[in-house]
């Protein structure tokens, strides 16, 4: 990973010295950016580098570094690329700059749904969305004569039929790796029942929806590879690519890999739809995530103005046209493809966004630690949910939230 970052840096610095042509402004001040390291951020930072004097850090340990880097005076970076999760601690620590004035001046080309507004102030500019949605092998569902499942109950039926027909031994894939991923699956399905995770700052997952969620998760695991508790998104992506599973709820950013001729044996066979619902009349059991740019607070107004303009150059139409497959862009000029259908269906069907609160991280960790106890049979559903609430409470007390 480090090598990759380094090579990107080298590529960026060489780019910046060659081509100024594609950038509308002439950048004379230094602009430093930090972000997570994946294809979309590579595209955006490369586009920014075309303006010159831009140095970008793409870091897989972004989450742990960015807080301290922006708290320095002056801040070590001008632009930081955040996602919903990483945005909250920065916002709460007062390290981000409201962008309203800058948007009025320079943001004519932005779509209105790109603005992340908190308390009436624009704090970030989103560039793409990400969400977990349903990916399925149309050819296999056709063979067993089923339509695309829209609820988890229908997924169970489909899985059973595929197994019965001896098409695939374990037809279902899921990011059930203990910890963050497993907790995410729980939260997706739980929110699908329309119930809240919190009452004030108290966790309230030990209820009917919580139990239903756990029971459904356990039923689903019967159709998964028995080692599902170590299945991270890359594992599930490979299962799909190699034709070892027929259906999976997976991140939208993984979709393009399924049509990558060099890795995938199922090019063109995997179709995308909204995440299955937890209940018939609910919304897709998933959450919407976004990635976007923010400007640091601890820099001068002049620097901020300049950095914002450069950042917008990275988020322009030209970049999207060149990197149409890298993400589900929110930027003008993006044309959805067959592979972005799942994410768009999720959005149209009112999938809620992953909550931007200080306590969501605590319950996410507590769930990640405990949900597997139910799946492995060490605890009952009620005991598991009670343990989640207890873990949450002790963590919340320690951090001062309770």
């Amino acid at each position: 990973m480090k090598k990759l970052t380094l090579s990107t840096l080298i590529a960026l610095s060489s780019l910046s010295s060659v081509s100024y042509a594609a950038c509308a402004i002439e950048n004379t001040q230094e602009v430093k950016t930090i972000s997570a390291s994946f294809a979309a951020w590579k595209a955006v930072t490369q586009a920014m580098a075309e303006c010159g004097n831009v140095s970008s850090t793409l870091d897989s340990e972004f989450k742990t570094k960015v807080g301290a880097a922006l708290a320095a005076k002056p801040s070590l970076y001008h632009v930081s690329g955040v996602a919903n999760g990483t945005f909250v601690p920065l916002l709460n620590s007062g390290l981000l700059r409201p962008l309203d004035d800058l948007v009025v001046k320079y943001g004519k080309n932005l779509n209105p749904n790109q603005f992340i507004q908190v308390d009436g102030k624009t704090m970030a500019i989103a560039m793409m969305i990400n969400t977990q949605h349903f990916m399925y092998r149309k050819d296999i569902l056709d063979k067993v004569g089923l339509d695309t499942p829209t609820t988890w109950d229908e997924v169970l039926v489909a899985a059973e039929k595929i197994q019965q027909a001896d098409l695939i031994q374990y037809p279902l894939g899921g990011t059930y790796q203990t910890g963050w991923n497993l907790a995410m699956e729980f939260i997706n399905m739980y929110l699908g029942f329309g119930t809240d995770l919190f009452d004030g700052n108290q966790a309230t997952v030990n209820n009917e929806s919580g139990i239903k969620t756990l029971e459904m998760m356990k039923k689903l695991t019967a159709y998964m590879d028995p080692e599902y508790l170590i299945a991270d998104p890359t594992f599930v992506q490979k299962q799909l690519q190699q034709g070892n599973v027929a259906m999976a709820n997976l991140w939208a950013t993984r979709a393009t890999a399924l049509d990558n001729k060099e890795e995938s044996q199922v090019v063109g066979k995997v179709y995308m739809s909204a995440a299955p619902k937890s209940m018939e009349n609910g919304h897709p059991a998933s959450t919407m995530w976004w990635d976007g740019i923010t400007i640091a607070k601890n820099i001068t107004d002049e620097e901020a103005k300049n950095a914002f303009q450069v950042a917008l150059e990275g988020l322009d139409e030209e970049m999207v046209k060149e990197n149409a497959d890298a993400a589900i862009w929110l930027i003008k000029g993006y044309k959805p493809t067959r592979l972005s259908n799942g994410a768009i269906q999720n959005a149209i069907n009112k999938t809620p966004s992953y909550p931007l609160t200080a306590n969501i991280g605590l319950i996410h960790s507590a769930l990640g630690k405990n949900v597997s106890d139910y799946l492995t049979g060490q605890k009952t559903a009620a005991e598991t949910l009670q343990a989640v609430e207890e873990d949450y409470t002790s963590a919340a007390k320690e951090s001062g939230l309770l």
Partner: protein
Amino acid sequence: MKNKTFFTFVAPSLVMMLVFIAIPLVSVFIQSFYVTQGVYETVTIETCTPSFPTSICESTEKTVPVLDETNTPVTQTAFVGLDTYKALLEPEKVSELISNGQFFDIFNSIDFYKALRFTLMFTLITLPLVIGVGLLIALAVNTASKKVKGPIIFVSLLPFIITPVIGALSIKWLFIGEGLLTRALESITGQEISMFAQGWSIELLMMFYRVWHVAPFAFVIFYAGLQSVNQDTLESAIIDGASRFQRIRYVVVPHLMPLIYFIALIHLMDTYRVFEEIIGFSSEAHVISLQWLTFDFLEPDDTGNRSISRASASSMLTMVGIIILLVPVLSRTLRDQKKG
């Protein structure tokens, strides 16, 4: 003068130990009695997040940190005594479970005891295995002909050279559902094998890995020890008609005893801090270790929270555990030394 020379030589390492071991240890010890908390307030905030075709805006009550005039979050630190240790050890829950007659549930339902159970078992089971396997390799290599000794020593040292996390990962990839060795075993036995689907098989794999990884260390030490076995005693034992086993039992092993204690000491210290196996095998669903527990408390979650106090308390408890394990071995070594 003699004392002065001694201290001049020792001083740099004493200073290093003070700065890098003693001071952090004291600070962790103190931290485990304090809790630093953010100050929060509840406000109603409207947030808009992107979606298609328009944004989703909603107004919700949110708890946000209070910022001071320099724009940094306000925190307060309070002395909490043993509260953090209590949160970790959950004495009330333990006594409740015991009074309900569910003694073994303690090791299932409370993280600390779950980790303690695995850590202790792992340490105590691998200890005799490492010593035994190390001794066997040393004895075997010692009897090998001079020509092949060099290459054999080199090959048997290889597992020890591999970085622990990398070693654990490669074992995982070999034994995972689609892994090479699993496929091979499946075709031999005709059965489906999922090593990572249940706790006991993961634990077995971890112990196998640890013994494979550490035995070369024991081997090197024992091999060195074997070079100084008194040949006269061995020869007279042969003349007296002692079998090979008897010679090992009554001549070689007593000679190696101090080394066995030394390896036991190092192994107990190292293995009680078992961590790489947990990460490498992603076994958190089934088994966790004390060191992993500390790591987990320290790891910031999505919203940047860490449990520094509980991490400090858990690392202090880990240290106490190591000391308890080491005391018998250390006192035995001291007694032997006095005798000698």
